[in-house]
Every structure is written in C-alpha cells, then in structure tokens.
C-alpha cells in the first residue's frame, strides 16, 4: 500500500510540472505582449512599458522567466489581479469556500441518489423501473446544464416564486463569514431565518450542478453491479444460502463500489467545469464565476493563477480517490 501511495505521488510530480508549464505559457501565448493586453485601449507610453516589462522580468530568457515563475509559485505568490490589485491567492481563498460548499452539496446529492438508483436498476434489470431510471439518467447525462439552470429559474423562481434567482443568501442578513461556508456561518450567526435563506439559495444551483454527476454515477453503478452480479463469487454467496439482501448489499456491492469510486473521483473535473456555468447562471460568488469574469475583464494573471490552482485541486482530489481506491480494493492494499 505504501509503495502504491509513493508511486502515485511520484506520478503527480511530472504532471504538476507540466501544469505549471501550461499556466506559465498561457500568458506568453496570448497574442500581443501582456502589458498591451492589460493596458487595453488606454494605451501605455513606451518608456513606462519598457520599465514595467523589466520589472516583471519579461525581458529575460524564457527558461529564466519560467524558473522565476516556479520560484514564485513555491512561495505562494501567484501574481496580482490587475483589476482588484489583490493577490490572486487571497482572492481565490476568499471565493473558494463558496464553490466547495456548492460542489459538496452537488456531489452528495449525486452519490446519495445515484448509487441506490443504480443498484436498484441493476437488480431489477429490464423492468419498468430500470428503464425509467436509466432513461432519466440518460436525459440528465445529455443535459446542457446552463439551459437546465435557466429552465429551473423560470419554473421555481419565476412562476412558483419558491426560490431566489441568484446569490448565496438574502441581502437582509448580514453577519461575519468566518468559515466561508454559508450554511455553517448562517447557523452560527443565530439570525432567524438566515439558515433557511442560505438553504433556499443553495438548492437550485446544487441540483443543476449535481445533474450530470448524478446521471454518470447512476449509470456506472448499474453497469458495475450488473458485471459483478455475474461473477462466480456472487454465485458462491447464493450457494451459501445467504439472503438476497446480503448477497446484493454486501457481496456484490462491495466489489461494485470499486469502479464507482473511481467514477466519483472523476466527477471533480466535471463539477469544476459545471461550476463555471452554474455560478455564472446563479451569480454564485465562487471561483467559476470569478474565472469567467476575469477572462472577460482580461485579468490574465487571475486566469493564470486560477488555472494552476484548479489543476492542483483536481490532482489532489484524484490522489485522495486513488488512496480510497486502494483502501477498498484488497488486491492493492495487500501487495
């Protein structure tokens, strides 16, 4: 297991270096030099520009620039936003909890509904339930979630007026956000109705963001279960006279979960990509919206920093999933 873990971490290092290269090249690949881009239509006088370029190290050879960049990263310096003048890392850390809160709710929803639905569909293979669950899952899997979000807004916010259109909490509440997680902060504030408001704001974005992972997890669980149910050891479990509940819920599920965990891990990327769209639609102040706004504001150091940080998060979550995978799979744990 230790060797497995070390191997996985070893694999991450070249990938991380590659990721920094991508983030580094991003600014250099932009058409025109960065300062022209940053200055926009106002223009900048040549002397000041040369001075700035020297300050930022753009006159040095590429490899030196890269090493400088790498050094900055290792010191936690990911550059400064041209718009807000705040360090990118600080901005990121302020906005990140909002995205995590949303993504966690979404993945929880997806796992808690998707796995049972998949198991049920597999056990009742070919039945009406199986067909409806899988039909629904396929629709979910095919859903353009930006449209799905708009549709839900029309229905629940427009027609039924049940849920708010945007934001994380109603503007009438004001309390310190120590953790950055609105559900926790609103509970701690003790303000009446604040928690309920936070929940109501969270529901629609979570549903929208959960849609695709939910569909993927349900489909994967079903096919993993179907595969496992045909295995010899499931036949053995039946031959032992165990109850169907134990055969399916213990012997089959335990094995089917192994590929499902991998699938759940792969949803991090899907969630972060989905967060870009969901946060834009619901004006959710997280890193997805931050990123889109930065691109349209041409705040390229923010984009560069976000690129690096998001890739790092994906890699870390994948590592955690790999470890989990090793833990549930004895063939890896005991070698």
């Amino acid at each position, binding site marked *: 297991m230790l060797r497995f873990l070390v191997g996985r971490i070893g*694999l991450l290092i070249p990938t991380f270096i590659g990721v920094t290269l991508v983030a580094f090249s991003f600014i250099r690949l932009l058409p025109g030099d960065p300062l022209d881009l940053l200055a926009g239509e106002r223009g900048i006088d040549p002397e000041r520009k040369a001075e700035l370029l020297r300050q930022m190290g753009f006159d040095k050879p590429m490899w030196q620039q890269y090493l400088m960049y790498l050094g900055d990263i290792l010191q936690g310096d990911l550059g400064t936003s041209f718009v807000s003048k705040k360090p990118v890392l600080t901005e990121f850390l302020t906005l990140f909890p909002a995205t995590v809160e949303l993504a966690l709710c979404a993945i929880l929803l997806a796992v808690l509904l998707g796995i049972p639905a998949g198991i049920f569909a597999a056990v009742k293979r070919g039945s009406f339930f199986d067909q409806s669950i899988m039909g629904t899952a*396929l629709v979910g899997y095919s859903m353009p979630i*930006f449209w799905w979000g708009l549709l839900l807004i029309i229905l629940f916010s427009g027609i039924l007026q049940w849920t708010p259109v945007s934001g994380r909490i109603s503007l009438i509440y004001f309390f310190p956000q120590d953790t950055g997680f609105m559900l926790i902060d609103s509970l701690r504030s003790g303000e009446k109705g604040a928690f309920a408001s936070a929940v109501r704001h969270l529901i629609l974005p979570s549903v929208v963001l959960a849609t695709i992972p939910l569909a993927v997890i349900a489909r994967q669980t079903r096919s993993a279960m179907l595969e496992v149910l045909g295995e010899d050891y499931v036949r053995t479990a039946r031959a032992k006279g165990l109850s169907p509940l134990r055969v399916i819920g213990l012997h089959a599920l335990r094995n089917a979960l192994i590929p499902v965990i991998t699938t759940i891990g792969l949803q991090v990327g899907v969630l972060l990509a989905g967060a870009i769209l969901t946060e834009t639609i619901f004006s959710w102040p997280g890193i997805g919206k931050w990123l889109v706004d930065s691109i349209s504001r041409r705040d390229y150091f923010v984009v560069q920093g976000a690129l690096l940080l998001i890739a790092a998060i994906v890699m870390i979550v994948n590592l955690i999933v790999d470890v989990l995978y090793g833990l549930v799979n004895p063939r890896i744990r005991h070698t």
Partner: protein
Amino acid sequence: MTEASATQTPATETAVAAKLASESRNATKAMLTEFWYYFSQNRGAVIGLAFFLALVVVAVFAPLVAPHAPDTQYRDSFLTPPVWEAGGKAAFLLGTDAVGRDILSRLIYGARYSLFIGVIVVTIALSGGIVLGVIAGYFRGAVDTFIMRVMDIILAFPSLLLALVLVAILGPGLTNAMIAIALVLQPHFVRLTRAAVLSERNRDYVVAARLAGAGNMRLMFKTILPNCLSPLIVQATLSFSSAILDAAALGFLGMGAQPPTPEWGTMLAEAREFILRAWWVVTFPGLAILITVLAINLVGDGLRDALDPKLKRS
C-alpha cells in the same frame, strides 16, 4: 502449386474466385446483420438514430426547410410568442426573439453548426487519439510514459476551463472553440486506445501474426487496431455529443460562435436576459441541444450493447 489449380482452366478459375468472393461477402453481411440485430434490440437506440438522421437531412436542406432566413429581423414582431400562445403568429411557429428573428428557422440553421462541430471535433480528436494511443500502448517504455504524462496534464484541467483558456488565447469564435474542444477530448481517446492495445498486444493472434512475419506497422494498425475499435466507436459517439454540449457552453459564455450566428448556445446567451419575460426564446434552443445530444447518446448506448462482446455472449 496444388493439384487443384494445376488442372483448372481460366474459366473455372474465375468461377471459383467469384464463388469465394460471394461467400466472403456473405460472411461480411452476416456480421453486419448480426450487428444490426443487436443494435435494433435497443429501441431507444433506433429512435435516436432515426432522429439523428432526420436532423442531418434537415441541416443539409436547411434553406429549403426553414420558413425564414435565420437573420431576417421582422421589426413588427419582436418577442412574438409561439403560435399556440395568445398573441402568437402563424408565420412564426416557435415565436421570434428580441430582434424579431424566427426562432424555428434559426434552430434549423443552428443544426448545421452543431453537427459540423461534432464531426470536426470527433475527427480531430479520434485520429490524433488513435495514433498516440496505439504508439503508447504498442511500444510501451519511455514513449508511453511521455505521451501518458502529457495526457495527464491535459486531464488535470476541467475540460471547459481548458477550452475557455484556449479560446482566450486563440480568440473567441467557432473554429477556435472546435480546436479547443478537440484538444480537450483527445486524451480520452488516447487512454482508451492505449488500454485496448495493451489488452490485445499479448494475445495469441498477435504473436501468431508476428511469427508470420508482420512488422510493427502491420501489427499496430492492421492486426491490433481493428480489434480495438469497438470502445473507440462508442467513445466517438459520446464525444460527438459532448462536443456539441461544450461548444454550446462556450457559445453561452460568449466564447464560442459569435452573434448573430444561429448557434444554439449563442442563441441561449442572447436570450438570457428575457428568461422571465419570454420563456420561448430560452426554452427552444436548449431543447434542441438536449434532444440532439440525447439522440446521439442513445445511439452510443445502442452501439455499446451491440459491440460489447461480453453482453453478446451472455
């Protein structure tokens, strides 16, 4: 060479050849029939395929099918609701948008863009992915490690994020969006091809072909690759639909096709501000995306069932 050929006259020779050719055709036909049998067992897949073909026809003959030109603005009909709603006009079956363009016509022309995007993106991603995947899986060693690490790097970025950034570099527009999406989808093909090649390369028939004198190129592309195609075909179908989705998402974020292009995602972006006033400008483009993607995914599922040898044998 053999007794049989020695005694054969040219006439019987061609007869033999013709007979063998027809036998061979029959075998191919039997394969296809069998494939179609398993595919058609899946009702959803057949419906999806029918819809997809209909969509292709509509897209090809868009100028003949569409009631209006996609960019004609009818100044007397801003935000006309669909024909069945109060205030709807028969000329605009699905209503008009904020500048008076017929939504149905724009959707019909929009199908061209979506299908075009799917075809181009899948072609680029698939061909690149196959070549890299076969090389990585066949040669192993340092080449493999290098290719797979590069793919890992691409996969470390969420697809839409990477596409957004690429578009930021290349500039917004449909072509750049397609290139970006193809690049983002490519690693999946590389991984899939590599995995399939790895599982095939040590099979006895490959060893037998090597013993028969087949070189690397022949082994890679003639012996092994055809046996790896099933998962790739399924993945290509699914990528076709995700390319459409991603392009629409980019369009929605203003980074894909630019207005006034009747691309479905771009249409949605333009319609966003009217969501609480005119539901139809938002609903129909999205519905078009959903149904198209759903149809293609249905076909993909059907292909998987028909091509998956495991299911076939059970």
